[in-house]
C-alpha cells in the first residue's frame, strides 16, 4: 500500500504517517502542493490523502494536475480530501471530482485511518 500524504501541519503529518505506517502502509509525505504534483506524476500511489489549504496551492489544483495522468474515475478512487473548512462550496467542489472529504479534526481516528487504507468506496 503506497500512500502519498499532502499535509502542511507538521505535527499532524508526522502523526498520520506514523499511524498509517503502523497499519502497514508505505507513506510518502510532503507539505507542498507543487511537490505533491511532481511526486504523483513520477511515482505510483494507491492513495493520495490531500489537505485542501496548502501553503502554495490548493488541494484542488493538485487534483487538476492529476488529470494528466489519471481518468476521472481513477481520481475519485485515488484521492481523499482532508479539510478544516468543510463549507458547502468545498463539499460541492469535491463532489465534482467524486472524492471523499474528511473534516478535520477527525471524529474517529481509527475509522479515518482505515478509510485512508481501504479507500472511500464503502464510506458514507
Amino acid at each position, binding site marked *: 500500500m503506497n500512500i502519498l500524504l499532502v499535509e502542511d*501541519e*507538521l*505535527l*499532524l*503529518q*508526522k*502523526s*498520520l504517517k*506514523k*499511524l498509517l505506517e503502523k497499519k502497514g502502509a508505505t507513506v510518502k509525505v510532503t507539505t507542498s502542493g507543487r511537490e505533491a504534483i511532481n511526486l504523483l506524476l513520477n511515482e505510483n500511489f494507491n492513495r493520495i490523502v490531500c489537505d485542501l489549504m496548502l501553503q502554495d496551492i490548493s488541494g484542488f489544483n493538485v487534483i487538476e494536475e492529476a488529470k494528466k495522468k489519471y481518468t476521472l474515475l481513477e481520481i475519485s478512487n485515488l484521492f481523499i480530501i482532508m479539510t*478544516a*473548512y468543510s463549507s458547502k462550496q468545498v463539499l460541492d467542489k469535491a463532489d465534482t471530482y467524486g472524492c471523499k472529504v474528511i473534516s*478535520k*479534526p*477527525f471524529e474517529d*481516528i481509527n475509522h479515518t485511518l482505515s478509510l485512508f487504507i481501504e479507500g472511500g468506496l464503502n464510506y458514507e
Partner: protein
Amino acid sequence: MENSSNPRIKKIQKNTRLTVHFLGSNPDPSFAKLKTIFSKISFINISEEKESAVFLATYLDHSIKITSNHPLIDLQPVILPDSIQLLANFFKDYQHYFCNKVTTASFQSFTPLVIRQHKTLDHHIKKIEFNILKNKTYQVESIKNMIMDKIEVKKFLSKCITIDDLPLHILKLHQFKNYKTCQILIHEKGNTAAESLFLSKGQTLVTSKILVTQFNKIHTIIKKSKTKLFNQTQLLNNDLGVRGTFLAREINLSKHSIIIVVSRNDFFPATLLEQEFFQEIIKNITLVLNNLLLEYLSQKKNKLFKLGLQHLDIPFEICDSHHQVFFSNALIDTLEYTHQDIIDANYILRYSPYCDINYSSDLYHFQRISLLGELLNTLRHELNNPLFGLKLTADLLIEDSSSEDFKETLGDISTNCQRCQNIITNFSLLYKNQDTLIDLNLYKLLKETLVLTKSETRGIEKEIVFSNSLSKEDFTIKTNPTWLAQIIFNFIINSAQAIRLSTPALANQKITITVTNQYLDTQSFLVISVTDTGPGIQKELIEKIFQPFITTKKEGTGLGLSICNYLTTKLGGKIFFSNNIPLPGATFSIELPMNDLNKIS
C-alpha cells in the same frame, strides 16, 4: 502662383470680404471703384471692442475713418504705397459723395505706415482683386447671410437652456434652413455608453445610447478629417442617423467628448460657405455646451448625493449657521432647500444617533460585532488544525512512552488540546445564526456556557440549581442552543462584571443559575434565572436597560442585554429583571413557554 502658406494671405482674404461687405449692395456707380481701392488699401484697424473694423484713409491731409461691423476681424494693419495715391484720387473724384455720406466718420491726423514687403503683398492683392471682381452680388449677399453677428450668436445661445434643445435650435438657424437632421453624440468621460440626441426636422427628438467603442470610432475618423465634410463611404455607422453627405465635428470638453453632425440628407456636398459656417457655429456653441453639460453633471451628482443622504443609515440633521435644522433624514418633510444651498453655505452636519432610539443602529458597533463573528470563524479554522495535530501527536507519544510521568503529562496536553477545541467550537456556535431547534440537555448547555465565561467569573462561586421537580440529568428541552446559550452567557458576564466593579473581594460573591418550572393557568413555563451578589441595577437605568448602547461599562458596547431581549423574543419568551431586595445584587430571568412540542421529559 500664390503662396498659400503665407498667413498674411488668409488675413487679407478675409479683409477683402470685409471690404465688400462694407460696401454692401450699394448700386452707386462709385461702388466698383471704391471696392478696388479699398481692396488695395487693406488698412484695417481694430476698434477696442473688437467688434468692428476701422478703415482708415487719408484725404486732403485728413485721415478718414470708416467703421465696419464684423465679429470675426482679427487683422493687422497693412497699407500699401500706391493705394494712398489711388485713394487720394478717389476722394478727389468723389469728394461730393464723401462729404454727404462718410464725413460722419471721424477725421484725424494720420501718418501712413509703409510696409516694406510691398512686392509680395502687391502680388497677393492683385489676386484678391481678381477674385473680388469675379464675385457676383448674390454671392456677396450669401456671405453676408452666413455670418453670424454677435447679437445673433447671443440670441442663439440664450435659447439653449438644455442640451435636448440644442439640435432643434441648430436646425432652426436660417443658415441651415436646408438641413434635415442634426445629431449630437455626448460621451461623458468614464462612462461605457454615450448618449445620442437625434432630431429630424418636424419630428420629435430621439435619444438613444451607443457603445463607447462605436463612439470612439466615429470620433477618431472625424478628428482626422480636415474639412469635416463626410459622406457615407467614409463614415458608415448604424449609430449615425444621417444619410448622404454630412458635416461633422468633434468637440472635446473637460468632462465630455461631443460629436455634432448635421446633414441635408442628400448627396450634394456642403458648400465651402456652409462648412465655414459650421465651424463657426461649433466654435460659438462649445462654451455654452460645456456649461450646459457641467450643470447637468452637477445636478445629477447632487440628486444622487441627496438620495444617498436620505437613505443613509445614520440619522443626521443639517443645520444652518443659526443652528436651525433644515434637513434631516429622519423626518419625512424636509424643508425646501436645494442641494446647492447645503453645499454652498457653511452648514454644520450634525450626527443625531438617538432621534429614534428603537430603530437607530450604530453602524460602528454592528460592524464590530459582525467582524467578531468573522474573526471567530477564522480563528476556529486556524487553531483547530494545529490543535488537532498536537492532540494526535500527544496521543501517539503516550503509546510509545514507557515513563508514567511522561504519559501523565502527555495526557494533560491531549486533554487540554481537546478543551481548547471545544471552547473554540462553542464560541463559534454562539455566533452562528442557526434557526433550528434541537433537543438538548439544559444542564449540559448551562455547564458549557459557564465554561465559556471562565475568565470573567474566575474567583466567583458559581452554582446551577434545578428546582425539585426537574432532573439535571434527564431534563431536555427543544430550543435553539445558540440563542439560549448566548442569553445565559450575557447574563453571567454581566453579573460577573458587576461584581468585579463593586468589590475586589470575591470570596463571598456568588452567581447562581436557577431553573424552575412554573404553571400559570394551564400553561407551563420554564424560568431560567441568573442571580448575582453585585451592586444591583441603578434606578435611572431600569427604564432603558434593554435599549441598545446603554452601558455602565467603560468598554461595553451596550448591546448585550438588547441582544438578549431580541433573542428571547425570538425564542417566544419574555425577559425580566429585578434587584434582590433586601439582599444585594440583581436577578435576570427569561421565561420560556413549555408545551408538548418543546418539552421532552
